[in-house]
């Protein structure tokens, strides 16, 4: 089957016209499948031509059939040609049946029954059924006339006379409706106006809007996830079914009890970042939601980079996000088994030892290995010699006889590395590659859903190939879009550079987007999970704006971070007519929108401090609502307003402090605005953060021609040493979070000492934190 003429002739056989043939030929996969179909069909018809309807169904088979039932092609073709399957619904039913009945033995009788083979629906039956259905809904139909949704009627009909010809049914329905309603009148053509939904206007009173609910990852993403049930791996598009599949799946179900089993497989060579949070949520979240389990598996096949601190850091972060691994495993736990698998692969003549150097097989179209066909015994012997240390690093590899989707030939399975391994010590000097290890580890752990990012899509078929080549249980690989955040970099190498250059202090510098940095900055894990849920619903590769993450943080902190009052740049005010003899204790609600959550005490004294930006001697803005020489301002929670009596200035003319008076707020005394203040305060160091990069995509050379390192925002960290906060924060622990009213959310930094608390600004209160 090589010449275009032959191809054209074959395609014409199933009723394609010349134009359609030209189009089809461009799609090689489809063409070859159709050719195969025709090949079978020709055998069945035995020299006769095909009926047009059958030809059409055969074409449908080519375009709609899922790859995992390709082995059933002869049956399908035969059924179509022999007119067992005559309609599209039957064909669809046939697909369904075959997908859910993989394996060798097919019960033809039940197949035929399921597909309605031989069921004849007479025109009389159709007529009668249509009549029945219309009668049942007659009143409504008469009322709504042509606005009645015909689709629901058709649906009902399909249920009742499943195997009737769809076209005939539709024609009959239309005819009977016309008889019932007569031709369309003008009224039928007027489109109904959609009722305008009147959104209730927010009243001032309800401005304290109902706080958004904190939702878990699965609550947000769950609906969009439509994975196969455990044990029904074959129902997934692209899954490869072999002779052994069914018995392997049966055994798999026996071992797992039908539980969902996933795994989070990080390499222990770096720090987890926000991108990993999605993988953690996906794997742990999906398992949890389905009462399954999730492994934390360290993909430690690469011995050179591993450090104990990375293992610890990863475990800590998974825990922080609120997930419990079912078990912590290591890819290296299976090195013995993997080695046996490799030998078995050689024995099956599906792998060989190759002497091509790495440089030789890199790049485009590398030459094929001249060692591909060497004797099995020789490869086995050399592979053992590799293990025994008889070769140099890079001199020799074990390669699999498989060409990947992207054209990469014979991926390497094992290579020599003379390096100590964190787990296996000096037991091995050959280490398996990702391509070899990953699927087999999944298989050994009975993973039901092997979730990974889109980049691995091109390795999916290799994944299936290897499991099937060794006749071991084959999990299903599902890919999801990787999470990219703008205004940041996450690669380990780049983070390292930032630290080396002294731009950032460490892996957990709050300007970074590693998970430990986010924790330090004060991001609650619930917010990160929620964020992952929000972006996770799409399987597409997306870059997400930081603002979405920040809004999740606000949502969570709004209901979890108690209020406190703080001033970043204090301005001393002495209240001359302070109405009390000594300082007052005022009760302040922890959460003004929910008073049931308790109160805390705040001191109110003769000397108060305001934020100096809340005082303006002569504001030009007419909408200015805070303190000026002439305008009083309310002091939150005190019930008093403050007026300026005198401005004490420094030699340079700047404001030193204010002398003021206060008056009780009442019917006649109403300040335009209320501000936060402190009295008898605690000093603290405030660290305010901005984006670390100036451009959205610092790694994009179009945006940043001189390289990402030149895009660093040097003012991303601002430290204020003499900020003040009310005493309610005393005694709080590291990572405790507060809303400093009117300023933002703050979290206690680990650098805090007994003498001086340090707070990180987690996020400002609003997206645009300009004050009105």
């Amino acid at each position, binding site marked *: 089957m090589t010449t275009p003429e032959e191809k054209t002739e074959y395609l014409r056989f199933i009723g394609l016209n010349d134009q359609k043939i030209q189009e089809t030929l461009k799609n090689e996969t489809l063409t070859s499948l159709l050719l195969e179909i025709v090949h079978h069909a020709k055998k069945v018809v035995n020299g006769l031509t095909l009926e047009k309807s059958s030809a059409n169904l055969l074409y449908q088979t080519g375009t709609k059939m899922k790859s995992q039932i390709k082995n059933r092609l002869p049956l399908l073709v035969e059924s179509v040609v022999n007119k067992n399957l005559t309609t599209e619904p039957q064909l669809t039913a046939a697909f369904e049946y075959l997908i859910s009945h993989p394996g060798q033995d097919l019960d033809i009788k039940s197949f035929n029954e399921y597909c309605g083979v031989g069921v004849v629906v007479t025109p009389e039956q159709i007529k009668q059924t249509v009549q029945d259905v219309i009668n049942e809904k007659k009143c409504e139909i008469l009322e709504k006339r042509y606005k009645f949704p015909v689709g629901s009627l058709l649906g009902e009909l399909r249920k009742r006379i499943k195997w009737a010809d769809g076209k005939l049914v539709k024609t009959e329905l239309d005819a009977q409706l016309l008889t019932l309603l007569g031709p369309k009148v003008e009224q039928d053509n007027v489109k109904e106006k959609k009722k305008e939904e009147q959104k209730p206007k927010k009243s001032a009173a309800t401005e304290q809007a109902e706080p958004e609910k904190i939702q878990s990852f699965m609550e947000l993403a769950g609906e969009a996830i439509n994975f196969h049930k455990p044990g029904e791996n074959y129902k997934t598009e692209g899954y490869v079914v072999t002779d052994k599949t069914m018995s392997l799946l049966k055994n798999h179900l026996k071992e797992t009890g039908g539980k969902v089993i996933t795994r989070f497989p990080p390499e222990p060579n770096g720090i987890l970042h926000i991108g990993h949070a999605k993988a953690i949520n996906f794997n742990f979240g999906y398992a949890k939601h389905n009462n399954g389990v999730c492994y934390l598996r360290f993909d430690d096949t690469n011995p050179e980079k591993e450090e104990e601190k990375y293992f610890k850091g990863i475990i800590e972060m998974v825990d922080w996000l609120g997930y419990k691994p079912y078990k912590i495993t290591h890819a290296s736990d299976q090195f013995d088994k993997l080695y046996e698998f490799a030998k078995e692969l050689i024995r099956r003549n599906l792998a060989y030892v190759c002497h091509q150097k790495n440089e030789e097989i890199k790049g485009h179209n590398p030459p094929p290995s001249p060692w591909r066909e060497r004797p099995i*015994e020789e490869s*086995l*012997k050399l592979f*053992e010699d590799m*293990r*025994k*240390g*008889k070769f140099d*690093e890079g001199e020799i590899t074990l390669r699999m006889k498989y060409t990947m989707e992207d054209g990469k030939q014979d991926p390497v399975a094992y290579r020599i590395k*003379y*390096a*100590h391994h964190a787990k296996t*010590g*000096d037991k091995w*000097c050959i280490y398996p590659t990702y391509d070899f290890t990953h699927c087999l580890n999944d298989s050994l752990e009975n993973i039901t859903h092997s979730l990974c990012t889109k980049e691995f899509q091109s390795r999916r078929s290799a994944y299936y190939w290897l499991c099937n080549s060794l006749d071991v249980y084959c999990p299903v690989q599902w890919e999801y879009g990787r999470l990219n955040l703008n205004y940041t970099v996450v690669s380990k190498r780049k983070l390292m550079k930032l630290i080396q250059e002294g731009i950032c202090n460490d892996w957990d510098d709050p300007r970074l987007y590693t998970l430990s940095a986010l924790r330090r900055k004060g991001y609650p894990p619930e917010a990160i999970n929620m964020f992952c849920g929000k972006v996770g619903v799409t399987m597409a590769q997306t870059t997400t704006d930081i603002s979405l993450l920040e809004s999740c943080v606000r949502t969570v902190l709004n209901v979890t971070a108690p209020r406190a009052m703080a001033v970043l740049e204090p301005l001393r005010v002495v209240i001359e007519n302070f109405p009390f003899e000594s300082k007052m204790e005022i009760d302040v609600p922890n959460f003004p929108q929910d008073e049931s959550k308790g109160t805390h005490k705040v001191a109110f004294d003769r000397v108060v401090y305001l934020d100096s930006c809340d005082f303006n001697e002569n504001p030009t803005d007419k909408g200015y609502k805070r303190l000026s020489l002439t305008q009083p301002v309310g002091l939150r929670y005190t019930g008093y307003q403050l007026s300026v009596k005198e401005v004490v200035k420094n030699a340079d003319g700047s404001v030193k402090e204010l002398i003021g008076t206060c008056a009780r707020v009442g019917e006649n005394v109403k300040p335009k605005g209320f501000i936060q203040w402190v009295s008898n305060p605690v000093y603290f160091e405030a660290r305010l953060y901005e984006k670390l990069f100036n451009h959205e995509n610092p790694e994009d050379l179009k945006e940043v021609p001189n390289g990402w390192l030149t895009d660093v925002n040097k003012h991303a960290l601002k430290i204020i040493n003499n900020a003040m906060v009310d005493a309610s924060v005393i005694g709080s622990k590291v990572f405790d979070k507060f809303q400093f009213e009117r300023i933002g959310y703050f979290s206690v930094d680990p650098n805090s000492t007994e003498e001086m608390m340090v707070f990180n600004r987690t996020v400002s209160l609003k997206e645009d934190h300009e004050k009105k």
Partner: protein
Amino acid sequence: MDYSSLKSKLDQQNRLIESLEKELTDLDQQRDKLKPNEQLAKLLTEREKLSFRIKILKRSIQEELSKPKSSSAMTSSNSARKLTSKALPPTESKNKYSTSITDTLYSLFDKAIQAEFSEIAEASVVITGSNVADYQCNSAMAICQALKTKGQKVNPNQVAQKIVANIEKNDLIEKTEVSGPGFINIYLSKNFCQTELKKLVMCGAQAPFIGEKKRIVIDFSSPNIAKEMHVGHLRSTIIGESISRLFEYFGHDVLRLNHLGDWGTQFGMLIAHLKDKFPNYSQEMAPIGDLQAFYKESKKRFDEDEQFKKRAYECVVKLQSYDPEIIMGWKLICDVSRKEFEHIYEELGISLIERGESFYQNLMKEVVADFEKENLVTVEDGRKLVFPPGVSIPLTIVKSDGGYTYDTSDLAALKNRLFAEKGDVLLYVIDAGQSVHMQGIFSAGKQIGWIKPCHRIEHVEFGVVLGEDKKKFKTRSGDTVRLKDLLDEGLTRALAKLKEKEREKVLSGEELVAAQKAVAYGCIKYADLSHNRTKEYIFSFEKMLEDKGNTAVYMLYAYTRIRSISRNAGVGSQQLKEYVASNSISLDDPKEWKLAKQILKFPEILIKTLNDLLIHSICDYMYELATVFTEFYDSCYCIEKDRQTGEIKSVNMSRLVLCDSTASVLATCFNLLGLKTLEKM
């Protein structure tokens, strides 16, 4: 002191602290700025990788050694390079093999060190003898040093403690103690030594297990036809014989080859001369009495007579084309030489297979083709040369006249021994003067891929023989000393020595001749073998016939004396076997214990010698054994006799066992050296 002065002092101190702290931070910063040396970093990584690989390879060697041969037909092992006894023998015959104590200790400590300090690949195990204890392990210091470079500070004593804690359960070690800066003193278990001695009595002195049996091809003696053998050949013959025996003792398959110089241009003139002198040689036996003289005559003619020279060349051509008549002449000449050689070999107890240069003549063409095929041949002035890597002098494989050279025939021999004979180990016992030539041959063999890492190819070189005047060994008239004459002189001198000691009165006529030969040839061999072969060696009958010190006479005498102890007590070896079967050997007396340990050192000496092929270690060991035995015998009664009657009052069987074990080890040593022992002397 008042408050203010205290305060000012405090301030002063504070300032000092501050300035020091500042200095520290400055220094820290400076250190950070120091550029790391890239090359150093590269080398360090490289070293780390190599050390790691050493560990892997060491383990692989053990793995391969411990694998029964049949199941590993595919694995030709790299480990053949060094033969050690670290692996355990197959269990069914485990009891027969002896145990090398050092090697067993080595592997015990290696495991213990690996268990604790696996990150240090260079953590080599150092086991030595000890004045305090029985053995000593001195690895802790080196490990400490290595840890230090990794930034870990520990003291060697702690390291030693850790090693000791990790030693796995074993029969060998009674106890260990850590002393001083980290020496580990090792005390052997008496129980273990008793078991080993028992084995020795029951099975005789056995070699330790060394894994796979190998094919050894050894080239030694190798004199030239028509020339007399001289002392140089004597050294090669004696050393080669002993090394062959050693390998055979370990159960290896040894092919002993005599690479005779039986081909070449000199045969042209010999045959031409033969034709002139005995024109009828093809019909009648030509009575060449003195081949040496015959050689000289023909050489003279060759140098003086142009016509003769021409005929001589014609004969060479005919010889090379295997002209039947000429071949007959060649054989005749060879036979004369062969007879002389065989006499000497028989006298000295040497066995060899003759495979001279002529054997390789037909293989040389192919060798040249092999090198040409691999593009390794350079043509220079009509000569075909091979430049082996790392060797300064090229090999000439084809002369400008198209003829071949020693280089060619040696390459042909190399190929034949590797492929046709399937040798795993190839040894060439040739004088050190040939080392450049041998290097060239070996290097070319590697270059062309014949020699693989699994092969062990060695030039067992030896130094020249000097006379007592420390000049090249010559007769008074300046001629080369003929070997036959030398042996005869030895016999004469040995007889004189025996008579001097009045042995003829004790020994029968037959016994005296046996003693004469044993002493004469024994002296010559022992004197040669007891010296480090790589050094020059001074040939002196005076010295070798001395009856004190490390000489054959002393050793042979010591041996007969030990043998006679049991005989005098009327105890035979069967009785000793029965005794050890049901009694344990007493090692309570320090002298008994010392002797036992010396006896049990035998296996490790064998292993060492098998690796370095320095036979003198065996002689040193024998001498030490004899010395320790004398100490034992002087202070421990084996047989108690009545002073008056001379009747035997009691026999200490346990001590007789020690005597017998000593004798049995010594006998084995003599046998390995190729010396005949005497029951009476």
